[in-house]
């Protein structure tokens, strides 16, 4: 037992929790408005909504508190707020604006009418209004690490403690460090940074290393250009991650740890910094944690925005002030990591599961998910899907359930084409793969990867060649240049893909592209290079015909590749009474024909799509043609 003198960590913790609960209870006596101010809420105008609430509340002389919370998870309906008033279940409202805020304050806060017609869902079971769990999304969703996101006050450690936060730490400190390790191992917790390596195994190797000086690092670099889960967790519930890291440090015997957060995430940095201070104040961090002889502290290191620095060894190099280039392994970080010392590096989400596992046990954790991939998967669900946002589902949920039920399908009858999973290292899967269960191994078999958790739904308007080119351009740019295959191979592939988007190439080109992809995959040192060809290889595998249309017919079926389309105004649809498109064109390419209809000067057109968007829906006269050939009759009339 790790006790110093008479202090019992459990007892000390219970006192702290008691105080936090009193604080929280007194706060709950008043009505509270929780406004979601994660990044997407801010973009949608959450701060304005917050001000509106405060102004209206003051104008009515009400005693109610307005509190900023993190990501509530339903980004599509931002700005969002939860109103918690004693005597009512807490209710979540979306699409807030000044008018609705006025109404809610008047009817619900001042009066007693929760205005259910504007509510999205209640957050607690009640007899009056359904909860999120009653919707299809709620049936499939299971929130473990996102449970408190958007509900707790990220700026107040008491808010976390009153919900049993840091109780896992107190429990662990009352026992042997070996118990933490055993529990994490038994839970078969796999790393959520992409590769799914068992966390327990990693911790054990670090522990067994025997060196006195060890480090813990949390990887919050989140380089996938289409993902924001790690940031949301850090912004919305920072203490959960800190507690996980402290538990890890206790298990492996580290005294110092770092959070490697990308500098582009200033809010996450700020929230974590405040959380660290508060945790130190309460004695959860620093010397003699909860009165025991275990001491550990955490610092923030701000990453400088290089995708490769998410890779374990490159990350450590950049922390040491070097160029962020990967090293060949072994030695692994658990042998020789930061400053040459044994180091445990885990993803934000991996750490976030740890307090739950310690509190509720490995068996509880394994009840969710599949045998090989227990627990949940967290995605940022975006693209052509109704319910965009942050979602958490049990491993083993199929892609179809995730898109159709949780995401509520594609908007207004759009046709599903593909889903991109895992960002630049992942792949595009077609309709026929939708019944693949989401877990580390099944996705890998299908050609994608679990990866970082970006999930983009695509429809008939998205060109697979352009998507593959987009990701390859990204990885090509981010390649650190160390491996010849990665540096030059991806460049060569990018040139070929660029050519294809212009209609250049033949069957051999596609064969070459595939071979190059395989070479880069097999000949690169780190996973950036090894996985960079994935978006290309999967689209070649599942959407070969689309590639063929580009090079054989000079046609882009999705009407995206700009060298293969032209803009054309259909005379049969254009109206003489209208000239909306003329003003919308930035290059003055649209002129009036002799007959009063409009037409486009192809030499001036820069294909910006303005006119097509501007043309009123009742006419829809501007269309794109691919291959880019004008219907013969029109040109004659034009000039």
């Amino acid at each position: 037992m790790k006790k110093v003198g008479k202090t019992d960590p459990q007892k000390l913790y219970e006192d702290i929790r008691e105080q936090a609960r009193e604080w929280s209870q007194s706060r709950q006596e008043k009505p509270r408005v929780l406004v979601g101010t994660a990044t997407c809420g801010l973009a949608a105008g959450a701060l304005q909504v917050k001000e509106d609430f405060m102004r209206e509340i003051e104008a009515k002389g009400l005693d109610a508190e307005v509190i900023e919370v993190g990501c509530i998870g339903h980004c599509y309906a931002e700005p969002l707020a939860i109103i918690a008033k004693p005597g009512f279940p807490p209710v979540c409202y979306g699409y807030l604006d000044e008018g609705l805020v006025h109404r809610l304050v008047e009817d619900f806060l001042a009066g007693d009418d929760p205005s259910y017609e504007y509510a999205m869902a209640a957050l607690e079971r009640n007899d009056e209004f359904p909860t999120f769990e009653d919707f299809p999304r709620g049936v499939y969703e299971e929130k473990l690490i996102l449970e408190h996101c958007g509900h707790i006050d990220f700026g107040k450690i008491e808010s976390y403690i009153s919900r049993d936060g840091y109780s896992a730490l107190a429990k662990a400190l009352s026992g042997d460090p070996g118990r933490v390790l055993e529990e994490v191992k038994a839970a078969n917790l796999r790393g959520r940074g992409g590769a799914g390596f068992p966390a327990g195994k990693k911790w054990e190797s670090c522990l067994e290393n025997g060196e006195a000086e060890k480090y813990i690092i949390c990887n919050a670099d989140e380089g996938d250009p289409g993902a924001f889960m790690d940031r949301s967790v850090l912004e919305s519930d920072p203490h959960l991650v800190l507690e996980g890291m402290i538990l890890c440090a206790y298990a492996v015997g580290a005294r110092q740890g770092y959070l490697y957060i990308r500098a582009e995430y200033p809010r996450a940095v700020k929230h974590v910094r405040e959380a660290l201070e508060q945790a130190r104040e309460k004695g959860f961090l620093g010397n003699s944690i909860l009165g025991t002889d275990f001491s550990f502290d955490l610092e923030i290191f701000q990453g400088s925005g290089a995708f490769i620095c998410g890779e374990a060894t490159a990350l450590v190099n950049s922390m040491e002030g070097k160029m962020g280039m990967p090293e060949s392994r072994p030695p692994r970080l658990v042998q020789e990591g930061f400053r040459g010392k044994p180091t445990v590096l885990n993803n934000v989400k991996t750490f976030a599961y740890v307090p739950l596992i310690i509190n509720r046990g490995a068996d509880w954790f394994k009840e969710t998910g599949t045998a090989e991939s227990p627990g949940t998967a967290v995605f940022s669900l975006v693209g052509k899907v109704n319910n965009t946002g942050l979602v958490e589902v049990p491993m083993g949920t199929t892609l179809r359930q995730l898109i159709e039920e949780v995401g509520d399908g594609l908007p207004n009858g759009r046709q599903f084409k593909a889903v991109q999973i895992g960002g630049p290292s992942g792949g595009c899967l077609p309709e026929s793969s939708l019944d693949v269960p989401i877990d580390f191994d099944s996705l890998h078999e299908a050609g994608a990867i679990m990866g970082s958790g970006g999930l983009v739904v695509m429809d008939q308007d998205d060109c697979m060649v352009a998507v593959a080119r987009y990701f390859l351009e990204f990885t090509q740019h981010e390649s650190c240049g160390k491996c010849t295959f990665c540096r030059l191979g991806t460049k060569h592939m990018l040139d070929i893909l660029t050519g294809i988007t212009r209609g250049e190439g033949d069957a051999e080109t596609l064969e070459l592209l595939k071979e190059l992809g395989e070479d880069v995959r097999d000949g690169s040192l780190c996973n950036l290079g090894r996985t960079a060809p994935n978006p290309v290889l999967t689209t070649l595998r599942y959407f070969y015909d689309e590639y063929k249309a580009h090079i054989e017919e000079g046609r882009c079926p999705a009407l995206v590749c700009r060298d293969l389309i032209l803009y054309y105004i259909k005379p049969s649809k254009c109206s003489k009474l209208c000239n909306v498109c003329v003003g919308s064109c930035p290059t003055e390419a649209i002129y009036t024909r002799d007959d009063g209809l409009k037409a486009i000067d192809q030499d001036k057109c820069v294909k910006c799509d303005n006119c097509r968007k501007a043309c009123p829906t009742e006419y829809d006269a501007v269309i794109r043609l691919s291959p880019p050939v004008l219907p013969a009759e029109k040109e004659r009339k034009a000039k």
Partner: protein
Amino acid sequence: MQLMEGEREEILACVKEVLGENSKTNENLIPILQQVQAKLGYLPALAMEKIAEGLDAPAADVYGIATFYNQFRLNPPGKHEVRVCLGTACYMAGGNITLESFERRMEIKEGETTPDRHYSLDRVACVGCCSLAPVVVVDEEVEGKATPTRVDGIMLALEEDRENTGKQESEEGEKSGQN
């Protein structure tokens, strides 16, 4: 890009201050660069030279680090900084078309600053509000659904400011001329 009046002194003072606050080890190079950039808005060549001197490291190393990491900018930021999101969701929603519209209107390319330092234009990856794609960040404000038509609106507001600043400057110029 040419240094403005008084900028040289500002750079030297800033580097001196930051170097004074940090212990001079290579491990601190990135934090030092971050702090200098936070103060000056970018990393002028002169600053990198002086940092290298201060850390007793080859200037090429400092320059190498500064160019390796996307966070560091070698051009001064414009008075108005426009950053176009080219994260996956925004790209798919036509973010590149939005970027081009800005390039055309500002007459600079992505990564550049206008000679009068009124605008700078950059690309970023996922700002975290993909539901509003395509997204641009104008100064610190995030604007959703930024189609080319919206670009025109944004530019209109920024141009107005440019004209006003231009006027003020020439008025000031006239005044000082009178003295």
